[in-house]
């Protein structure tokens, strides 16, 4: 096995509030291979968002080791990260295509090419025809698709998603899960996907990392051996149920 794209060894983050120390992330140790879609699942307060921000380079950490990139796949922290959040956070005053362009503009990439790429990406996420619309003309699910296109526009190697479908209704959410799998397979990106949806974590992930809260720590890390492309009826399969049961047990919900 070649070296992994991302390696965390004993990463730890402590918050200090009035002298007392609270571990936000402790002993996070896992590898992510190039092209994987890894689900990070856990209850609120388990430190999953903190961990994501550490990987994004937005938060510091107090102990441990974090390395991203390999000899063959070098990682440039300033332009190899795409982020998607729970809210689409589109700029209300920009047309969809211009919203998608934002990271490219900030990075100073050639605008004509980026615009072309933005249009291609909007096609990829199923939004062709909405390029010139304003965000308010789109439904929540469609806005989130645009946010995914925005995360891809500067062609980053790593996409970090923080509960991106958490604010959508259940049906739209299932649809977006399928869409995300398709986009992931077509783009070949490495994706770290944070969720507190246990079935969502299993359904999407090539691997699932489970975090528990109080105290925050990493509880499990396993491969999901379900074939690709995934279909919704897999959720009724015995193997799928075993994976979700495993997580429920870890989170003490059984």
């Amino acid at each position: 096995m070649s070296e992994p794209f991302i390696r965390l060894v004993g990463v730890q983050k402590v918050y200090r509030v009035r002298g007392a120390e609270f571990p936000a992330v402790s002993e996070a140790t896992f590898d992510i291979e190039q092209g994987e879609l890894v689900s990070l699942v856990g209850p609120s307060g388990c430190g999953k968002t903190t961990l994501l921000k550490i990987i994004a380079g937005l938060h510091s950490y107090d102990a441990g080791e974090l390395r991203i990139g390999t000899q063959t796949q070098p990682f440039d922290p300033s332009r190899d990260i795409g982020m998607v959040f729970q809210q689409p956070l589109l700029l209300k005053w920009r047309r969809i295509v211009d919203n998608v362009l934002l990271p490219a503009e900030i990075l100073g990439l050639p605008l004509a090419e980026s615009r072309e790429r933005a249009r291609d990406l909007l096609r990829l996420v199923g939004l062709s025809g909405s390029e010139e619309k304003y965000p308010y003309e789109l439904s929540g699910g469609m806005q989130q698709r645009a946010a995914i296109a925005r995360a891809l526009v500067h062609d980053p190697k790593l996409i970090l998603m923080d509960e991106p479908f958490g604010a959508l209704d259940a049906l739209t959410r299932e649809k977006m899960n399928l869409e995300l799998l398709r986009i992931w397979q077509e783009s070949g990106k490495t994706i770290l996907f944070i969720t507190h949806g246990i079935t969502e974590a299993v359904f999407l992930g090539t691997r699932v990392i489970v975090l528990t809260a109080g105290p925050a720590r990493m509880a499990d890390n396993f491969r999901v051996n379900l074939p690709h492309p995934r279909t919704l009826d897999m959720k009724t399969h015995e193997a799928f149920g075993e994976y979700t049961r495993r997580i429920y047990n870890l989170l003490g919900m059984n």
Partner: protein
Amino acid sequence: MDIYRNSIQRYSIAVFSHLMLIVAWHLFVTLGNVPKFVMPSPYATLQALLEPNYRWPENIMVTTIEIFGGYFLAVIGGIGLALLFSWFRIFEMITMPLLVSLNMVPKVALGPLILVWFSYGIGPNIAMAFAISFFPIVLTTARGLQEVEPDLLDLVRSVRGSRWQLFAKIQLPGALPYIFSGMKVAAILAVAGAIVGEFLGSSRGLGYLMLQVQVTLDTAAMFMAVILITLIGMVLYGIVLGLERLLVVRDARI
């Protein structure tokens, strides 16, 4: 076009209700035999314009300059100060509490002081219009510049966006709706400020004219002056509204 027809319909109704008010006014005065010095008829009010001694064009001009001048200074000063707040936190921390207190000062009460400092004329009345319309612009603009979604901030930081990029691409355009809501309130206040200034001390302007004709009980001229002041205010408000439509996407307007 349906939308087009709708807006024509809406404007026709607005014109109609204004005409109805004038008709009702006319009927009230003629049928009720109201004496002219209590309430002149619409026709008599219009006739007041024919009195050359009242120097309508000059007085209209003076009041317009006072309102627009004070308002313009308030917009420049208000937005400028709010920008300084957002750039220099320490400056905001020192000045903002002061501003909140000063905002509570009834600006009208400053009139006699302004007269002492600047004597009377157009200048002090511009100062009055400025003083009264300045605060809502600073406060709403400062508020708007603060309103940046933390996740959006992370998105910009993840591609190492500069502070200037954050300001130019997100903060300032995001604050525009707030700026305009402050500017709309201020437009109404600027009119009041200029007129109060003229009441307190001046030798020209519609407010000054009102005090002159009050002595001779020429109520028709007073009515006319009030109508003209209102019209000046409406023109200013209309310009601000037009700018808002031009610069702020419909969904973002507040």
